[in-house]
């Protein structure tokens, strides 16, 4: 596999950093190298949140990226701000429930994911990030879906949160092209 550079952006409270951590754990589960770099600062609920995840089969020299292979925009400000970061031919995952505008660039592949709407139909809008994660995994093939299922079960929705696992597994598989 090549090195995959992923950038995930949205607002605080949307589970942006959790998505990045799940991907990183998933990479570890497949014995791949990974790095997770969150934005940090005087962050708050409703403010901006983003993270960079690099996954590779060789040691990662640089956890910072100058271009992304895939970009997840969970809200409009994220799309407007980070669209230029995507490389030519890169994949832009748009949360179309919250983003009505279309991206300006025509040299990228846009994948529409009505993440909040799908999650709400499943019964919990908070699972929008997991819906999006499902789309990201399916369309990029960066990791195997069963690795993410393993992480959801063993690292995220376990112990007191175990009751949330079935809904989130459903959310993970909910998006269809």
């Amino acid at each position, binding site marked *: 596999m090549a090195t995959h550079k992923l950038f995930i952006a949205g607002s605080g409270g949307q589970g942006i950093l959790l998505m990045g951590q799940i991907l990183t*754990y998933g990479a*570890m589960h497949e014995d791949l*190298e990974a*790095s997770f770099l*969150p934005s*940090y600062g005087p962050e708050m609920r409703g403010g901006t949140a983003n993270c960079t995840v690099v996954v590779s089969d060789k040691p990662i020299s*640089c956890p*910072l990226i*100058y271009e992304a292979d895939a970009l997840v925009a969970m809200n409009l400000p994220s799309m407007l701000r980070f669209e230029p970061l995507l490389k030519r031919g890169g994949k832009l995952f748009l949360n179309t429930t919250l983003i009505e505008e279309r991206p300006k660039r025509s040299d990228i592949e846009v994948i529409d994911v009505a993440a909040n709407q799908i999650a709400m139909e499943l019964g919990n809008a908070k699972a929008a990030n997991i819906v999006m994660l499902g789309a990201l995994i399916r369309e990029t093939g960066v990791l195997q879906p069963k690795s993410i299922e393993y992480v959801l079960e063993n690292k995220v929705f376990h112990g007191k949160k175990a009751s949330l696992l079935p809904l989130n597994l459903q959310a993970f598989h909910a998006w269809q092209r």
Partner: protein
Amino acid sequence: MTEKVLMKGNEAFAEAAIRGGCRFYFGYPITPQSEIPEYMSRELAKRGGTFVQAESELAAVNMAYGCAAAGGNVFISSSSPGIALMQEGMSFLCSAEVPVVVLNVSRGGPGVGGIQPGQADYFQATRGGGNGDYHIPVFAPLGIQEAVDLIYEAPQIADRYRNPVMVLVDGMMGQMMEPLRLPEARPFVATEEIAAYKPWSLTGKAAKGGKRRVVKSLLLKPEQLEEHVEQLFEKYALAEKELVRFETIGLEKADVVFVAFGTISRLVAESIELLAAEGIRAGMIRPISLWPFPYAAFEQIDYTTTKAVISAELSMGQMIGDVKMGVNGRLPVQLIHRTGGIVPTSLEIVEKTKAILQGVK
């Protein structure tokens, strides 16, 4: 070998300190390293150690001084302005020959500055903000694993030299997560074992008629003070032989050589690959010990092919003076830098390098 785990840098640093045998932690929260005192407050007592939240960094370093003088293995941490407050203590610890491990998770300055990563504490770390003739060994890892390994090793170096040892990382390393392997835990030195382990320490158990143990930094007679400082510098001369650490990449037949430590060295490593794709051979000297600085590494530069040496820094250029001493006039030394918490992209480094090479042709 232990299993790979995924941890936030700061938590991994704290865990590495505990596993390295640091039984006492004194600290005060400051971004971007507050997860360290948080982790210590949660974990240290469970493992038989002691956590104290001090009222300030000045108090923390002096608690460390007192505890370590009594033979305790102490780890302290802070971020740039907090480390500035600890500088008086660093000088006292050096003079009194008391080992303590210090971690700086640095941020942008001067002043309170910002909370994004920076390397503008190079002077503070290597030249010191404390008074008098002293040195502190300073190690600057490039990522979480190397930081963990150095924090784990640091107490042994501190004990061997009876001197503080600093590990210098930055806010980015503190906040990011990378899979890593933690070293096996060394057991804490029990209180009753301290006298045998550190015979100089103030355990209050000197044999009857034995020599009084004194830990102090006040020597009023100039002859005594001069002799004391000269003895310290015999240790520092040994440290300059034993503790120099660096890594080199692709110096052979290089067109240009970068010198970079910590976070920016990872960007430079990627820039080197990007430059290679354009037919430019770039190499790197990566200092791991900032004091003692690896001047000897500069003898490995190929002065027949290399046209320039570039000091790449997240500051206005602080290490560049040491780089110039290493190069010793043999080549022009240029600076590529960002500061204030901005980290350049590897592409930005590539563009600036090409501009520099145009200028020296």
